[in-house]
């Protein structure tokens, strides 16, 4: 049991990026826009952070980490603008535009790596993020703060009520003077920033460079977290913890004689299998925001 406590830092390291991305995904879906581009946006963020940190490290020292994370977030935000413009202003199919960004992410990030570094990945930075004395990375605290702030914003402030109204019934929201377009833009850009930031956290804690396999499905796990967590902050926190632990076990299962007999892939499958099962069990009761995925048209009813 003691050794399991020793694994908590590893688990938290894996949970944090998932939680940050999922929080963004939740904000986005609560405003009525489905964002399956989370995976791609994480790639943009991870690439930008790794690149920025490589160049800034020498001059800025430890401050470079935070600066690079910010740059990663802004890079994600920039590309989420495409999704926002397509799906809100042009009323495009949200799944198609999200898929486009995911495809674009593989191309653009590695293309830029070729331009900057002449190889299909970024050059290694010297020093990633450092854990504290208990071995816990600051990303865990970042994730927690973001989740609590988001909860406060969405459920305790008028702004949050307005944002959620846009996802439930945009026409009603419009009728009481809420600018649905603006709210949805804010939500999509927020999810882009958070996905980018989380990509940065991922690359700074678990890697020393960015390559095409750095993000490796974390964005899709975050998407599963949003569904499994029933679009609520507490649910998302719990789901991230569960899925992150499953992922951690695919790495650490070898330390336990009992688990060593199982193929480690069993733990990789768990987040996805659990989500599918949960979607079936929750079916009938619709927890998803009512208008998520539907473009909003002014005046039409």
């Amino acid at each position: 049991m003691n050794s399991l406590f020793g694994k908590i830092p590893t688990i938290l390291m894996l949970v944090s990026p998932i939680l940050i991305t999922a929080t963004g995904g939740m904000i986005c879906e609560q405003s009525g826009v489905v964002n399956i581009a989370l995976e791609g946006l994480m790639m943009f963020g991870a690439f930008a952070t790794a690149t920025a940190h490589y160049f800034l490290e020498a001059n800025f020292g430890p401050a470079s980490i935070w600066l690079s994370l910010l740059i990663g977030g802004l890079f994600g935000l920039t590309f989420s603008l495409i999704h926002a413009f397509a799906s809100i202003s042009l009323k495009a199919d949200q799944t198609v535009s999200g898929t486009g960004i995911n495809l674009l992410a593989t191309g653009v990030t590695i293309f830029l790596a070729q331009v900057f570094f002449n190889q299909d990945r970024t050059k290694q930075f010297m020093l990633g993020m450092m854990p504290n004395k208990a071995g816990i990375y600051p990303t865990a605290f970042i994730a927690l703060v973001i989740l609590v702030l988001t909860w406060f914003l969405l459920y305790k402030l008028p702004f949050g009520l307005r944002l959620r109204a846009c996802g439930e019934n945009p026409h009603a929201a419009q009728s009481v003077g809420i600018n649905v377009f603006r709210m949805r833009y804010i939500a999509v850009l927020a999810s882009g920033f958070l996905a980018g930031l989380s990509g940065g956290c991922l690359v700074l804690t678990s890697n020393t460079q960015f390559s095409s396999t750095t993000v490796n499905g974390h964005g899709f796990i975050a998407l599963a977290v949003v569904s499994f967590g029933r679009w609520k902050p507490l649910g998302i926190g719990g789901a991230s913890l569960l899925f992150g632990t499953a992922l951690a076990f695919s790495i650490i299962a070898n330390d336990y004689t009992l688990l060593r007999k199982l193929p480690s892939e069993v733990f990789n499958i768990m987040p996805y299998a659990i989500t599918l099962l949960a979607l079936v069990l929750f079916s009938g009761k619709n927890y998803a925001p009512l208008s998520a995925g539907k473009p909003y048209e002014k005046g039409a009813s």
Partner: protein
Amino acid sequence: MDKTKKLKQRKSLGTFLQESDGAMSVLVVLIGFLFATLLILIIGRNPSGMYKAILQVLTGYNVDRNRFYVRYIGEWLAQSMPLILCGLSMGFAARVGLFNIGAEGQYIVGITVAQLIAIFFPQIPVAHWFFAILFAALAGAIWGGIVGWLKAKYEVSEVVATIMMNYIALYLSRIITLRIPGANTYRTPNFPQTALLTSSFLQKITNGSRLNLGIIFVVLSVLIYWFIIEKTRTGFELRATGFNKDAARASGIPVVKSIMLSMAIAGAFAGLAGGIVSLGAYKYGRVLAANDGYGFTGIAVALVGNNTAVGTALSGLLFGMLSTAQPLMESNRIPKEITFIIQGLVVIFIAIRVGFRMVVAYLAKKAPLKQEKTLNTKKTQEEMPTHE
């Protein structure tokens, strides 16, 4: 005088783009290439390298060496086969109003089953590879059918469900393939000769390319797709379900069955792609470390092809050409990732083509009366699914 002429021209181009999905696709692809060309110029390389590579794939002709390499044409066709099939997979589901991101997973299931049969089935000529391919398609059908069943019975979003099934397929495939006797962390022992799709004739006429018998199944699939969708009662019911589920149900069409069937057929196409790739392009079973990506590119293929049989075949050839040109681009100092950028841009442009049409419509008419008219047609167009 000049101005009115110009306006007239714009209008005719406008209506053309409004009405023809094919013209829109061509426009979208051209804009994608334009962006790519500009991007290459920005990073200070010579875009002619990209076009030379493309020319060599299309015709086998190498401009710099003034020689023909017929092998590239064979490689191009071989590379297009799984893309066309995955495009058909995505397109078939789209005809019923479903978004099948799961072609990748169905493809992986197909690979896994084909590899198992290739290794364990008795070595009977022809029957060996035939059954491997057949069961690959069947496995894909089951994998897709599960999602259809969940969607029809429990209203689980097929987008989320297929993404989950993709990753389950990937890791399940690893678990199973690693259990095959003699397998190491990345490959199994060689397949017996009877399991391979290679054809000495096709290799001979294409100077040793990887073109194989799979091409027959691809041509058959395109024909079957066209036949089911356009000529059968089932196809009509499927399309009706795609246009309006409630109306279809009201007119006695079994909607639940339609959804399951469409996902199963979509899965069969992708599973077939997996079978063809594993027995045509490789001589041993692979322990997959990551997605091959054919399924995801298939989404772009179907979108550009407007979910029609012929359109999907053509756009599959387009994307197959891009990916075959990759190594040639590299040797011309063009980062090969430019092809992924073109893919992504094309999908995004397709997503915003309603927006394109709005701009075209806006430019086309200035008179308020005409504007009102097109506003109406625009609305009906948006409400209808985008395919014809």
